[in-house]
């Protein structure tokens, strides 16, 4: 199939999705990481710090590559779906109980 040409003209929609949903996604993934390595009692434990650090590379990667979406709308939908999956998984782990309580 011949993909439509990508351009930098519609950057604002894509960049805003990358910035906002990229952070939501990175935060969610850091929660999954925290759950999987068992960050439990102390927040500033080295494991907890690692989970915090993991936000940066994920956020930067999403923000850099979000321009590969064809349009701003597609970027918001695509990253929104990805975030929904990650946060649903987080809910499944019980990591969100504190927030919902």
């Amino acid at each position, binding site marked *: 199939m011949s*993909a439509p*040409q*990508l*351009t*930098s003209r519609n*950057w604002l929609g894509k960049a805003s999705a990358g*910035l906002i949903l990229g*952070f939501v996604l990175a*935060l969610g993934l*850091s*929660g999954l990481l*925290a*759950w999987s390595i068992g*960050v*439990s*009692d*102390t*927040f*500033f*434990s*080295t*494991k*907890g*710090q*690692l*989970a*915090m*650090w993991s*936000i*940066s*590379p994920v*956020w*930067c*990667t999403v*923000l*850099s*590559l979000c*321009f*590969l979406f064809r349009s701003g709308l597609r970027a918001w939908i695509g990253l929104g779906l990805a975030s929904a999956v990650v946060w649903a998984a*987080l809910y499944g782990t*019980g*990591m*969100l*109980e*504190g*927030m919902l309580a």
Partner: protein
Amino acid sequence: MKVRTDIVRMYKDIHGWVGIVSGLALFVAFYAGAITMFEEPLQRWASPPSVLAPPVPLERTPELVKAVLAGHPEAAKGYQVHLQTGREQPARVSWQVDDPAGGEHGARKTFYAALDADGKLQVEERGPSPVAEFIDVLHQQVGLMLDHEIAMPIMGAISLLYAIALVSGVIVLLPSLVKDLFALRGGRNVKRMWLDVHNLLGVFSLPFHVIMALTAVVFAFHDQFYDAQGATFAQARERPAVATPPQPLSAGPIPPAALVRTLAREVPGFTPVALAYGKGPDGSLTLRAMGRDPRYGLRAPTYTPAILGPVTGRVTGADYLGGRQDGWGATITSFFALHFGSFGGAGVRWAYFLLGLGGAFLFYTGNLLWVESRRRRERKSGAVTQTRSTRVLGALTVGVPLGCISGISLTVAGAKLLGAAATLGSHSLIYHVTFFGFVFWAIVRGSARSAVELLPATALAMACIPAVTILVRSMHPAEVLLVDCVAAGAAAVLLAAWTATRRRAGFGPVDSVWSARRNAA
């Protein structure tokens, strides 16, 4: 490698824009950051001989501490014992209190204590030179001397742009990577030459830049990251302070000399530099040792901390202590050490110094390319005068880097003239007057003429560093002459650049913003 042409074109646009927005701020961050690699030698170079009596021997430190606590009970909250003293750290004991007059958030005053020949307490507020600290703050806040709370998010935004610039730059280069990588084509096509330099620097220092971008994002936003996690995740909701087991109040803390012996036995290879004795809000004692081990990376720019039992002196918290930490601690420590260049000793510091300067030059060449590519476009469409944006960008590309270099040079040279009266504020004033003066001059005079005029001024500013050392050598005996040698060498390089610039302004293409032969405006 094959990449679709529309993707390359799109990322080329993105690379240009994020680069031009963040490039000049990153120049300041990298130039100042390169200098912070030698924070300690610079502080030793800049600090005047202390008026305090020579530090007491380590064995007599308890006597000094007792005198300090009797005269200044507020020091009990936390005081430091310095095991290595010198110009840069003149006192055996120092402590900090919140500055009520400062008003500024988090401003603290430091006091330095000694015992005179009669065993009487001497307390001095004027300490070692703050110039290294000033350059560090300039580096952290990418040259924006705003309130920390305002500067950090801006710094974070610039770091994010920097990350985008790295990814987009690599994507743009991928299709021609093999062809272009080892090519450095001089000759008539100046833009080609600058592009080759930009690519060469960018690709070969890419790992360094990836580290800097990712760590800088964390340094800027860690509070927000922790807050977001704390507000969201069940397990992360509580933020208990580092737990310290309650101490029997009857026992006093272990004296420094005994502690040094305990540490030598318990953690061989670890050289303690300073000991921080403190008292928590509940009255429990705390003790931390700051030190180095050349075999391991350090958690802080110049030391790594170890938490100790205040009475026993045994290590109770080894998260950042190389050789004693677990894999998680080693991983976190490595993130910091990779940013600070605090591993591998002097060789790595010099490498980081050069990589930092190379990074600053990378952003400078990026700006040059932006100006040059604008110029070509204008020539194609028949216009011979440069647009205002090209002229202003061209002028800033001269004014900001040279203003930053000169400002730092003069504020460093000023450290020796100001002597003990130097404050962060006075260093900031010298820097900013110079910096904005240069930027203003560049905008008023245009890039071509201002480059010819500001380059020798920058060389002169750089030469002030060794000149001041010679000038005040009787009052302020010289130490760390390497600082003067490097500055003199840099002044010579700037003079060589001046010669080349004069030639270009006189004989280069007339339609360039760099030509002075006809009014570039």
